[in-house]
C-alpha cells in the first residue's frame, strides 16, 4: 500500500505529518510505503530517518487546484498511490474538491465533507454549538476594520483575535487588537474572528469519526507545557468522561468523517468546558494516541480502504509526550536534490 501524507513541517509550529507516518508504520499488519508531499525543501520530516521513503514538492493550495492535481498525477504515475492523507487546514478545501477526481484515478481519501468543513470553520462553530447545547465563547466575524468598533458592545478585554485558518493573538486593548487584526489580515485575509477570551486550562481531544456518526476512538490530553506560540510541548492523557462525551456528541451530530482535534478550555470561573475549536485533521501530538492504545491514524487508513473498524473502547491515561528539538544533519547536495528536482 502506498500512502502519501502532507504536513512534514515538524517545526516549532508543527504539522502532524511526521507523527502520522510514525503511527501508521506501527499499525498492526501494515506494510507499504509512506510518501511525503511537501511544500518546502526544508521541512524537517524530509530529512528524518525512517519517516518518508520518498518526498515530493507540491504546489501550495493557494496557487490553484488544477496545478495541484497535475502534480499529484505526476507523482501517482511514479508511486501508484492508494491513499492521500492531507494534514494541514488550508489544504482541506482543495483536497475535498479534488476527491472525486482523485478517486477516479484510484487514489482514496478520507476527508470531511465541505459542509463539515464549513461547520467547523471558526466562524460557524458558534452557531453549531449553541444549537446543540455545547458551551462556546462569543464570536464576532470581522470583515473590515469597521467591525473592530463593535467589540465593546459584545465583550470585555482581553479578547482573542484569530485568523480563519491559523494564528491567534490575545489582545488586552483596542490597540493590541488592531495590531493583531492587521497582521492576520495580511497573512490570511478575511474574515478575522474576534472571540471572547475565557480564562482557564486548555484541554484537547484527538478523535476519529467514521462518517456515519460513530466515534471510532478518542483520547483526551491536557497540555503540561505550552510554548510562547501556544503549542503544546508536553502533555498527558486523561481519564475525562465529560470531554469524551462532548466529543462524541460533536461527531454524532456532524457525522464527522476523518481525524480531528477538539480544543477546549475549562473556565476558571465556572468550571465548565467551552469548545474553542474543531481542527479538521489530526493534531501534531497524534502519536500520543497509539501510545495510549488507540492507533487512530492507522484506523483512518483502514476506514479509507473500506474496512470495517471496531470502535476503540479504552486507552491508558497518564501517558506523557514530551516534544524535543533534535538537529538533523544533511549536506547541501541533499538539499539540492529537493530544491532543484522537487523529489528526494
Amino acid at each position, binding site marked *: 500500500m502506498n500512502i502519501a501524507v502532507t504536513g512534514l513541517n515538524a517545526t516549532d509550529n508543527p504539522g502532524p505529518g511526521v507523527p502520522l507516518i510514525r503511527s501508521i508504520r506501527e499499525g498492526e499488519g501494515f506494510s507499504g510505503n509512506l510518501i511525503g508531499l511537501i511544500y518546502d525543501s526544508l521541512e524537517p520530516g524530509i530529512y528524518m530517518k525512517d519517516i518518508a521513503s520518498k518526498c515530493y514538492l507540491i504546489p501550495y493550495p493557494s496557487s490553484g487546484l488544477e496545478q495541484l492535481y497535475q502534480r499529484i498525477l505526476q507523482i501517482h504515475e511514479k508511486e501508484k498511490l492508494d491513499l492521500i492523507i492531507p494534514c494541514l487546514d488550508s489544504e482541506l478545501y482543495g483536497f475535498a474538491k479534488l476527491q472525486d477526481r482523485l478517486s477516479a484515478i484510484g487514489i482514496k481519501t478520507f476527508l470531511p465533507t465541505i459542509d463539515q468543513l464549513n461547520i467547523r470553520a471558526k466562524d460557524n462553530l458558534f452557531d453549531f454549538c449553541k444549537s446543540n447545547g455545547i458551551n462556546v465563547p462569543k464570536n464576532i466575524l470581522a470583515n473590515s476594520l469597521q467591525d473592530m468598533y463593535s467589540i465593546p458592545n459584545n465583550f470585555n478585554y482581553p479578547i482573542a483575535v484569530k485568523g480563519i485558518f491559523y494564528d491567534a493573538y490575545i489582545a488586552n486593548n483596542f490597540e493590541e487588537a488592531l495590531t493583531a487584526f492587521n497582521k492576520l489580515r495580511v497573512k490570511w485575509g478575511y474574515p478575522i474572528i474576534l472571540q471572547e477570551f475565557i480564562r482557564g486550562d486548555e484541554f484537547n481531544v484527538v478523535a476519529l469519526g467514521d462518517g456515519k456518526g460513530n466515534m471510532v476512538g478518542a483520547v483526551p490530553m491536557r497540555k503540561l507545557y505550552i510554548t510562547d506560540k501556544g503549542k503544546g510541548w508536553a502533555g498527558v492523557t486523561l481519564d475525562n468522561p465529560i470531554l469524551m462525551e462532548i466529543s462524541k456528541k460533536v461527531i454524532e451530530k456532524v457525522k464527522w468523517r476523518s481525524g480531528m482535534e477538539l480544543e477546549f478550555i475549562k473556565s476558571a470561573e465556572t468550571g465548565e468546558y467551552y469548545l474553542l475549536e474543531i481542527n479538521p485533521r489530526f493534531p501534531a501530538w497524534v502519536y500520543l494516541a497509539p501510545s495510549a492504545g488507540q492507533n487512530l491514524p492507522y484506523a483512518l487508513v483502514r476506514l479509507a480502504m473500506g474496512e470495517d473498524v471496531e470502535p476503540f473502547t479504552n486507552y491508558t491515561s497518564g501517558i506523557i509526550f514530551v516534544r524535543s528539538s533534535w538537529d538533523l544533519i544533511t549536506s*547541501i547536495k541533499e*538539499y*539540492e536534490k529537493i*530544491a*532543484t*528536482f522537487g523529489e528526494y
Partner: protein
Amino acid sequence: MTNYIVPQNVAISDSGFLFQPATGESYTLNEIGKLIFKMLQSNSSGEQIIEKVCEEYDAEAKSVERDLEDFITQLKHYSLLKLS
C-alpha cells in the same frame, strides 16, 4: 562591456543549482543562465558570451545583449558578481 569577477568557491552543478558558501544562499539557474555564469567564471567577455549564445541558440545578438544586461544586474544584486 565591463569585466566582472565571480566570487571564489561558488560552485554550480549540472542541474543549475548554485551554492554560495560564503553566504549560505542557494539558487537555481536555467540552462542559458548556467552557460553564462560558467563563462563569466572563466573570465569571458560580454561579447564572447553573446557570440557563444547566438552560436548555440536560435537568438539574435540584440536581444541576448539586453537579457545579459538584466541577468548581470541580478547577479550583482545577489552579490554573485562584482566589478573587476
